[in-house]
């Protein structure tokens, strides 16, 4: 349903659906990273508001530690969600293709 793989060097690859049912495991995975973290979203099909909460919490923690979270490979649907929620103003987002 959802996997988050660490590729080292602050790069994480997320695949699947980040919905309310997956928030717990996603949060646990993201709590382990530090510094400037790039989340490769090419395989992320879906994100719900609960998923946004996970990203918000992570970004706040990283910023406080002088790091940050950035997203790459964000698809059109996800981009809409980030835009409607104002998350495009608090997380660096790079869209796919």
């Amino acid at each position: 349903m959802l996997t988050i793989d660490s590729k080292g060097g602050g790069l994480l690859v997320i695949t699947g659906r980040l919905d309310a049912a997956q928030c717990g495991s996603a949060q646990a995975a993201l709590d382990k990273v530090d510094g400037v973290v790039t989340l490769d979203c090419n395989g992320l099909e879906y994100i719900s508001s609960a998923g946004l909460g996970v990203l918000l919490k992570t970004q706040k923690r990283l910023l406080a530690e002088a790091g940050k979270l950035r997203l790459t490979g964000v698809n059109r649907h996800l981009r809409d969600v980030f835009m409607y929620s104002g998350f495009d103003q608090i997380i660096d987002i790079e869209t796919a293709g």
Partner: protein
Amino acid sequence: MSLRSHIGRLTIEDMEVILNVTRDLAAPHDLEAMLNGVVAAAKQVLKAERGSVWLYDADADEMVMEVATGIAPVRIPASAGFVGACARERRVINVPDCYADSRFNPDVDRASGYRTRCMMTLPLVDHADTLVGAMQVLNKIDGQFDANDEALAAVLAAQCAVAIQRARMTEAIIEGEKMRRELETARIVQMSTLPSKMPAVAGYDFHGMSRPASQTGGDTFDLAVVDQGVLVVLGDATGHGIAPALSVTQMQAMLRMAFRLGADLETAFINVNNQLEQTTAQDRFITAFIGLLDTTQHRIRFQSGGQAPILHWCAQSATFERRGPTTFPLAAMQMRSLRPSVSLEMAPGDVLVLLSDGVYEYCNSADEQFGEARVEGIVAEHRGLSMAALGARILAEVHAFAQGAPQEDDITLVLVKREGTANGTFARSIDALPSLVAFTSDFFTRYGVDPTLLYPVDFALEELFTNVVKYAAGGGARVEIDMATHAEGIEVVLTDYHAERFDVTEVPDAKVDLPIEQRRPGGLGLHLVRRMVDHVDYEYSDVERRSRIRFRKNLRT
């Protein structure tokens, strides 16, 4: 003998008459006035007692003399008599003494009481060397027609031939224009009988349209709510033009009347057939599908007089079922009885496709027909569209296929879809989310819903479902979800029984422009749902303690 040598002998009067004739003939005339003018001029110039003009009818290979308005013209074979010989050989025939000439037929004189002494017949040949007819003058007032008269007549005949040909062409053009206007009027009448509004029946989507090949077509359709259900008609009369257009218009009117009067399908079919048989030409008939759709039993009963194929997209099996005609075409012959009507079950997502052969048999420039396989392919791929959009799609594909080849036959489409519906019950738990996702995905696949709607529908449904799980924990163990397609898109209803009232539409929007330090997780779900879908409403029943959230997502058009 040259004309020039004779022109010197023309009197001033003769010259004046010929010039007058030339001038008059150049003016626009109707054919009848033109012929009268030619005859009068010929009599005057050639000093003849009588004159007549015969016109050549190339189609019938006959020579025709218009005697007077209102009387049938005299027709003779183009090979008969002096007129025929003159026309055939394209030379002047001058007979000084008719009764001494064996070729002369005295019957005409006997009938009229007139005695023909001498006669001159001249061919009328226009500048393009086309035979126009023949001019004949009888009985020179002071003797016989001589060589001088022949030369004079030849000058006159040349003028007349060109003028007559021009008048005939003008008449043909005017006739064509009159015909065009009549057809235009007939088209307006015919098109005005076609339904302009489609029946509005919840759970169904109807579309009908007709595009005639020429001004008037032999196709018709009907989609109308009657007491017996929704009347569904597609008719195609043989041929084009006013007669077939009238036949199908008549049929459509009779059917509506019969059903308004409470007739059942079989009675209406038999009676309309028998009436049409009496009023339609012997070699004409109308192929027609006539059906009545019961929108509560979801069953369409039909009779098809020679109208096929009847394509039925079955959503459940994702296949087409093809039905053939139940009987012979309407108006073909009298009918006493009819086999029982055929019934089709319209399951959710099913589409009935009725197209006139103008679609199936549309030929492209390579002489290839559009065919059934292409129609099936388009319907299967685009069945999730509204029927109006599917119709437009079919026409667009036919147009692309044609590669500029003109439309030879009328094109008529009748499309009936029963909207797709699905109902599911889910445990009130976040763990139910995967089965919710699968339910939505199945629905989209089965009914061919535009995949661009999947994300927002998934999103809204999940947010609302999660909300129900989180905030209405006191509710029943299960949540019910209903999905339905409609012409513009999709509608989803979440029903939560034994729940407290919680109106999701009253939740304020989140403040999304706050700096990150001030932003808190949560509160975004409904904010986003409102932006992702087109309409959200809420309904609560105190009696049942039932909470119902409904949202719609429409296709952008």
